[in-house]
Structure formats: C-alpha cells, structure tokens
C-alpha cells in the first residue's frame, strides 16, 4: 500500500533519516520500534509531508507523494495522529472530532462516525461537551486517535500512542487499535517505544537505530529475536 524507498530527511543540518526503506502492506498493522531519537517520528512526519524528505521516494497506492503538501497527502487518505496528542484544547470533544472530518461534507456520515467513535471509547461520549484541554492524558490520546479516524483514513499513522499513559490505559488503547484495524480494514503504521505491546498487536515490525533500519521481520519473529529481547524488551 505504502512503499518508502531510500528516504533521507534532514532537520536543518541534522541528518535524521539515512536511507530508510520499508513497506506497509494493505490491511496490516506495521510497527516501527526504536529508542529515543532514532528517527521514528521523523519517518512519520516525512510520510505525512509535514517534514518533507530531501531525497528518496514515497509511493502510496502507486502514486508518488513525497513532494505533495500535507493537505494533499491527507486528502489521499494518509492521516497522522501526531505525537503528544495535540488536540485542540479550547474546542469540545465533539468539535475536535468534527475538525477531524474537516475535508468531508456528508453530515450523516460524520454523525455516524462520531457515534461509532463513542462506541469505541465510551469515555469520550461521557465527556463530549468538555473542552479538550480539560481531559486527562488517556482521554486526550483516545480523542487524538478518534480525530484521526474521523476522515475515514486508508492509512493511519500513529505516533507513540502509549506515551505517558498508565499501563491499564495503554492496554485499552492498543486493544482499540487492533479493533480499528480488524473492523475497518484500516492499515496502521504504529511508531512506538513500548516494543513489547506494539509487537504483540502488529503483523510486521521494523527496528530503527539512529536513522537506519537495522532489523525487519514478522512481529512474532521479532518478539522472539534475541537481539530485540535484549535491546528493547529488557528480558
């Protein structure tokens, strides 16, 4: 579905991605794990076009997207849920969700999707009139993922959804990610530090170290790989 070929991305003079290549097959959950500063988030930002790559190629459903503006890429169905949630603090939960459906015009479909999201996360339904800033960290993460779903994406890019959450909430969030993938056939690219949780729900995994992909395999194999166990699972 999405193919990334020898991608190089820079932040000013800093070479953040050094010839990164990977594939996201349709309907799968693919995870990218690695330590802080490995370049995981940069890979996501490059796909969504917010930090455009300098060299390399990204094709989505056969179309090159690496030179498109973020809004064009979004319109194709590639939606990023940015790191640190970044919900709109002064808008209510419902309004935040409606912002996610910014490019859509079908009122009925939007209302249906909001109902679907409230069934996924009943907590959000309870708090629908509260402003985003008053939600707890976990609720904000639920809202951020939900807001990403509102545009009915083909590919959902999740950046560290477990960041700063209690273990119970992390489990809830990951279970829901799995559910979204199963029920809507949404392809999901999951960037995570929590390698254990991410590899449990993913089909495939990539391991990144200082801007380079060092390992790639099915998630099950990676979970059992000695190297991953030592470096990321702490077993």
């Amino acid at each position: 579905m999405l193919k990334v070929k020898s991608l190089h991305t820079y932040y000013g003079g800093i070479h953040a991605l050094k010839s990164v290549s990977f594939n996201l097959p349709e309907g799968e959950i693919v995870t990218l794990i690695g330590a802080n500063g490995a370049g995981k988030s940069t890979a996501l930002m490059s796909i969504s076009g917010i930090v455009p790559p300098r060299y390399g190629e990204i094709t989505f459903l056969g179309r090159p997207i690496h030179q498109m503006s973020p809004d064009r890429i979004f319109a194709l169905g590639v939606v990023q849920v940015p790191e640190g949630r970044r919900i709109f603090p002064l808008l209510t939960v419902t309004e935040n969700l409606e912002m996610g459906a910014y490019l859509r015009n079908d009122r009925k479909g939007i209302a249906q999707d909001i109902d679907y999201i409230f069934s996924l996360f009943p907590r959000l339904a309870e708090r629908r009139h509260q402003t985003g800033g008053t939600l707890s960290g976990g609720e904000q993460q639920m809202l951020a993922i939900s807001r990403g779903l509102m545009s009915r994406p083909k590919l959902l890019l999740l950046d560290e959804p477990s960041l700063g959450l209690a273990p119970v909430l992390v489990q809830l969030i990951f279970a829901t990610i799995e559910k979204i993938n199963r029920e809507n056939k949404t392809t999901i690219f999951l960037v995570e530090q929590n390698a254990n949780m991410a590899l449990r729900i993913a089909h495939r995994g990539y391991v990144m170290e200082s801007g380079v992909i060092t390992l790639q395999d099915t998630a099950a194999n990676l979970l059992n790989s000695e190297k991953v166990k030592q470096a990321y699972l702490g077993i």
Partner: protein
Amino acid sequence: MTAQISPFIRRAVSEVVQSLLVSCWFMFLTFPIMVIKVNPLERTIDWQWMRLVWIGVAVFPLSFVWRYLMRRKEHGGAQDGEESWQKRVGDRLRTDRKISGPLLALLAVFVVAFPFMFSSYQTQIMISALMYVMLGLGLNIVVGLAGLLDLGYVAFYAVGAYSYALLNHHFGLGFWPALPLGAGLAAVFGILLGFPVLRLRGDYLAIVTLGFGEIIRLVLENWNAFSFGPSGIAGISRPWFFGADLSLGQHTVFLYFIVLILVGFTILVVNRLRNSRIGRAWIALREDEVACQAMGIDKTRTKLTAFALGATWAGFVGCVFAAKTTFINPASFTFMESAIILSIVVLGGMGSIIGVIVGAMVLILLPEYLRAFSEYRMLVFGASMVLIMVFRPQGIITGVKQHYRFGQKESAQEQGERDAASA
C-alpha cells in the same frame, strides 16, 4: 476573649498598613506630575503640596476597594458561581425572544435616529467609532480567529485610503467605484505581506508585521512623486449621492449611514465566516498548527485568506476615512493606530463580535467624552484600560466559546440534552 479578637485586629491592622503603603507609593509616583508646576514666565516652581495630600486621601479607601475586588475575582474563578449573574443576563438577552426582540428594535431605532437626535459633532464621533468597529472586526479575523498577531494592520488602512485618494486625484474616480477597488488592493497587500510571514508565529510575526506597517508609512512619506509626501492629498471628493448638492451637515449624516450599512455588512460577513469551513480552519490554526496540518488543512491558504480578508475591511474603512476627512497624509497611519485597533480587539474580547463593538465604543468614545477631564483624559483612559485587563483579562465580553458551534441542529440538540441533564 482576647484570643478570639486578636486575629481580627491583626488582619485589620495589616489591611490599614497595606493601604497606607499604597497611598504613599501613589503619592511618590504622582509627585512629579501633580506637585511640581513650572511657571515658565516667572521662571519659578510652584509646589502644590495640597494635591499630594488629596492623592493620598483618595487612594487610601480605593486601595481597600481594589483588594476587595481582587479577592472576589479570585473566589469567583474558584467557585464559578460569582459571575454567573452576568452570564445569566447575557444568555437571557440572547435567547429570550421576548426581551431580545424589542431590545434589538429599540437599538435599531436609536442607531438610525442618532444623526437626527444629536449634533453634527456627535455624529462625527460616532462615525469614527463605527469605523473603528469595522477595523476591529477586520483585525479580529487575523488576531482573534486565526491567532496571528498583526501589529501593522494600519498599513492596509493606509492602502485603502491612498487608493481612493490617488484614484480620485488622478482619474476623478468617485467614492463608490473606489470602495471595492480600495478593499481589493488592500487584500492584495494582505497576501503580499502574508507570503513572507507564512513560517512565522507569535513574537516574530508581530515584529515583521510591525516593520511592514512602518515601511508602508515611510514609503508614503518619502515617495513624493507618487503620494505627495508628508503634505498629503487634499480635496478628495465626498461620496456621491444621486448628484444631489449636500451641505456639510447633510454629508455627515449621509456618511453616517454609509458607515452604518458597511458595519452591518461587516458583522454579517464576519459572522458567516466564523461559522464557515474556513472559520473553523482559522480557529484550529490558532490552537495548534501541527494538528491542523494533520487534519488536512492547507496551512498556506488558510493563513493567506486570514490576512487577505482582514486587510479587505481595513481597505473599506480607508476609503471611508479619505472620504470623511477629504484630506489624508501619512501622519494618520502611524503605529499608534495599529495599537488602538489591537487594543479594541483585545479589550473587547478576542474572537467576539459584540466584544469588538463594545471595545471600539469604549476606546474611541471614552477619550472624546473624557474631554471634560482635559489634561487628565489620557491618564483616565490608560487607567481604565489597565482596570479592564486586570478584572476581565478575557476582554469585556467573554464566553465566546459557545459561539463556535458549527452544525446548528446538533447544537440545539446538545442544548436540549444539557438542559435535561441540569433539570
């Protein structure tokens, strides 16, 4: 017994001591302007010590009031109930048709009858107040909705005024065709400014826009061949009214109605814009730029439309200004104007239309009606600005939040649900 009274006494003493200190501080602060009076003819200094005493006596009780209000404000924030009567009155006025209908009708009658009820001087003041309402509403798009701090807004005002003045001077173009042209040119300048500042936010954006405002003014001041320099352009035609030969007073009344209609038009358009798709994009952009991009909003276009649409209203008002004064020069377009317009938006309540209207009325009418205070007028003006910001940091009209609803039906339904929940 003494154990019970002593904390009370201790508090009273500390209050009095505090007030005394505040009085002394104010006496010290106002000493140069209140006490020293130079007599330039006799080259002597009159020491007006009695005034110092008056300041002290006046400040002493006021400092009690001040501290009481501050304390109440803090409690109000915590309990959320103190201010509720204001909100209740506001909601009642807005929702109850029985009250809002006649009130609006009364207001409309008053506004229409205004130039016939009051003198030409009063009408002139009201015209400039209404012009600032428009300027405030225009800047409100850029600052209040899109969250882009623009300190050079006066530049677009100047573009509008000079477009009309120059077109009139060289080609004899009348007010009516010049009005859309001036607005259009201002919009073009808005986009021109918008392009280089797309990447900037906050403080950096403010500095660049400030520079832009000054550049426009300096160009107008120095490019004699184009803009006639500091001497300005005189003899600009007044608006054409079916070829009728109006007296000065009639012209004022006519201009009043032109401005009134333009204000109505502005309110209508700004209100529609705010609830539109682009309005939502502005609000989202103000809150979080990265999230905005992740929602598929075109950042470039959204920012540019905010600048362009904001500038358009300044262009309109610029034309009206040139027609009103029939003479313009660069001195009318200093940074002070930008600052006043920005104050209108901030004091009135960012993002709120009614807030901006009230803000403009207070900021433009107050200095006029304070003329009775002669030399202290700007002092009182400044003090009232400080007071508003201390006690109503969100602006005079707050609670803008509920205006940001999109999807009318759903909001009515939500309202119903909320009522049911509270009942």
